[in-house]
């Protein structure tokens, strides 16, 4: 509910502009998840129940020229204490001055076009504790200057003075690396978390084409991993973990690089390493009739020198490209009803290869989206990802419908099928198929 009130403390301002709008809205979410297969490790739980709260407070004044937004997220989880977490998603002031927009504080930003992998979406760190789809993000402190052209395009400059580390599931959690990841990360930059990153992005449109081009310079958001603790076992020659890369969708835990463990020892824990990078990215969508054509591509120049010594699979200076491209076609009013069916195909490529990065190096994503267009907004999304190189398969099913004006229910199922042991991104989580029921209540 938006409460409107006259701000008596703004007496100096003309009364037409003295109106202050503010609102407080809270989403409460209940989540029940069951894993359908026995866990890889004894400590991992088969069920979890969780509650989350997400209040957002907003206020604007001077005819919305100035606004302040605060958004917090808190989660309590029965199975994984690491997943009991709080994050300040947003806390920023924004001012609009003709064509200029200035934003200072913690915020979230989205870049990109494709549906499965948000390849060029760089600014915010993933909230990997929330979901594996890379769509939940941690708040990022920033100064953002945005110049908006009359044509609808805009140029944005971001200054990012503080880095948010990814957080990883704890012992009881599933969808994680088989060894714990130490809370203390290491950095390429001597400034660590205080390295000032920056980015510039221009976006616009012309006819059916929407496009964006961006440059990012600073700390890599995706961690790499180096050994933290190694238990020396003189007799052992076999390696407990001879390769760790688990990039499920947006790297649940480990990403990249066959991490070779020391010759005669067992890897007890890992440490996250954040290198530096310069990145050029483009993203585009062409819309024509019922067709959407989508593209994201990036060229990266990574600096990982401080990690290259402790994990030989990490390349000290690494230049590579990656891309994802696809299309979406919609059939309207199918089966003589109001329903729509959208069909999506996307191809994902990464120059680093099978175990070099995201795990999506030669993968195809096929999906169908059904929207009933009924009063409850019922919708179903069924998807399949398969790796053309090693034939690992991933299935996903999402259904949601509104229950009332204040509530909604969703069902989500994910299945990892025929995961090849060569596929280090998915192999550690091959037993983590799950089904989840979620209830959202909007206060």
């Amino acid at each position, binding site marked *: 509910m938006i409460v409107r009130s006259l701000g008596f403390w703004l007496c100096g301002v003309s009364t037409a502009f003295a109106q202050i709008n503010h609102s407080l*809205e809270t989403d409460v979410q209940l989540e029940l998840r069951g894993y359908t297969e026995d866990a890889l490790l004894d400590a991992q739980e088969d069920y979890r129940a969780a509650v989350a709260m997400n209040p957002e407070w907003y206020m604007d004044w001077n005819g*919305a020229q100035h606004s302040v937004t605060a958004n917090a997220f808190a989660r309590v989880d029965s199975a994984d204490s690491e997943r009991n977490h709080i994050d300040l998603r947003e806390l920023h002031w924004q001012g609009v001055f003709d064509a200029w927009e200035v934003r200072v504080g913690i915020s*979230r930003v989205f870049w990109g076009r494709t549906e499965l992998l948000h390849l060029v979406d760089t600014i915010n760190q993933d909230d990997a504790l929330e979901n594996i789809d890379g769509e939940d993000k941690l708040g990022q402190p920033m100064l953002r200057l945005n110049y*908006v*052209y009359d044509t609808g395009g805009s140029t944005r400059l971001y200054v990012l003075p503080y880095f948010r580390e990814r957080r990883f599931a704890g012992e009881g959690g599933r969808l994680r690396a088989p060894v714990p990841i130490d809370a203390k990360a290491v950095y390429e930059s001597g400034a660590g978390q205080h390295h000032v990153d920056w980015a510039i992005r221009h976006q616009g*449109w012309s006819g059916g084409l929407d496009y964006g081009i961006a440059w990012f310079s600073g700390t890599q958001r995706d961690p790499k991993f180096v050994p933290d603790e190694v238990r020396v076992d003189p007799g052992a020659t076999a390696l407990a973990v001879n390769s760790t890369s688990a990039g499920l969708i947006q790297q649940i835990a480990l990403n990249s690089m066959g991490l070779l463990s020391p010759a005669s020892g067992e890897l007890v824990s890992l440490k996250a390493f954040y290198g530096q990078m310069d990145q050029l990215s483009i993203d585009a969508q062409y*819309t024509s009739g019922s067709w959407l054509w989508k593209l994201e591509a990036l060229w990266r120049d990574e600096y990982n020198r401080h990690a290259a010594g402790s994990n030989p699979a990490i390349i000290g200076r690494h230049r590579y490209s990656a891309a994802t491209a696809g299309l979406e076609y919609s059939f309207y009013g199918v089966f003589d009803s109001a329903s729509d069916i959208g069909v999506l195909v996307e191809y994902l490529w990464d120059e680093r290869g099978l175990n070099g990065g995201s795990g999506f190096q030669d993968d195809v994503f096929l999906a169908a989206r059904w929207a009933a267009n009924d*009063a409850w*907004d019922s919708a179903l999304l069924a998807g399949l990802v398969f790796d053309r190189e090693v034939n690992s398969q991933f299935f996903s099913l999402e259904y949601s419908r509104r229950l009332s004006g204040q509530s909604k229910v969703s069902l989500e199922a994910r299945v990892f099928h025929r995961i090849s042991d060569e596929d280090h991104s998915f192999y550690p989580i091959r037993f983590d198929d799950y089904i989840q029921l979620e209830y959202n209540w909007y206060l």
Partner: protein
Amino acid sequence: MKPRLSKRILLLLLVLFSPFGFAQYESLSATEKGLAIAREADRRDEGWQDSSATMIMVLRNRHGQESSRQMRSKSLEVADDGDKSLIIFDEPRDVRGTALLTFSRKVGDDDQWLYLPALKRVKRIASSNKSGPFMGSEFAYEDISSQEVEKYRYTFLRDEKLNDVDCFVIERDPVDKDSGYSRQVVWLDKAEYRVQKVDYYDRKQSHLKTLTFYDYQQYLDKHWRANRLEMLNHQTLKSTSLNFQNYVFASGLDERDFNQSGLARMR
């Protein structure tokens, strides 16, 4: 002085003749007359500049169960192309903050962007889905989009009284092949050229829906807007009423208020 005088006389003649039997339409064919009426209705509403309003929709199924929607809409008049509009959703709560920006085109597909607040994502969407339901209601996207003269071919059908009001009855056939309708029959009152009723016929030529306009109110001494629209689907017996509140005209909105780069800050 002379040309000015003759102009006055011309104007006087027009004023004298037009209220009596709409002399200007006399010599026209049914097609020409239909188009002339549509143009006149459009001309009479020109110059509204921009408008904003709160929209409340009540959806009813055949058992009378109701659910409601609440939105805020802003529109900008564009002289030589279709108008621009922005709809911000407030209810139901799961879609609160979602915003739909439309640059309508007189010919061809509109340009549409959707802002999804949970992802902070602005997404260009296919606008070819003209016949799809808007928010699960009985209003299709094409029913609530900007009604440009060029979107239809017209035929004058007859003069008729509707609830004791003298009306023109015209047929309009959508030009767009993606339209869900084969034709629409429209009643406009002769006094102010306001749409009073529309009968929609689906692609199979059967009577699909009827839209009735209630409580017309005049703004800026010129622009008529109905406060209530009732859409009844004869085939499913579902209905939707659409109520407009807090209409404001010419408040100084400009292109910058209808910009997809700024969608994320629309509240």
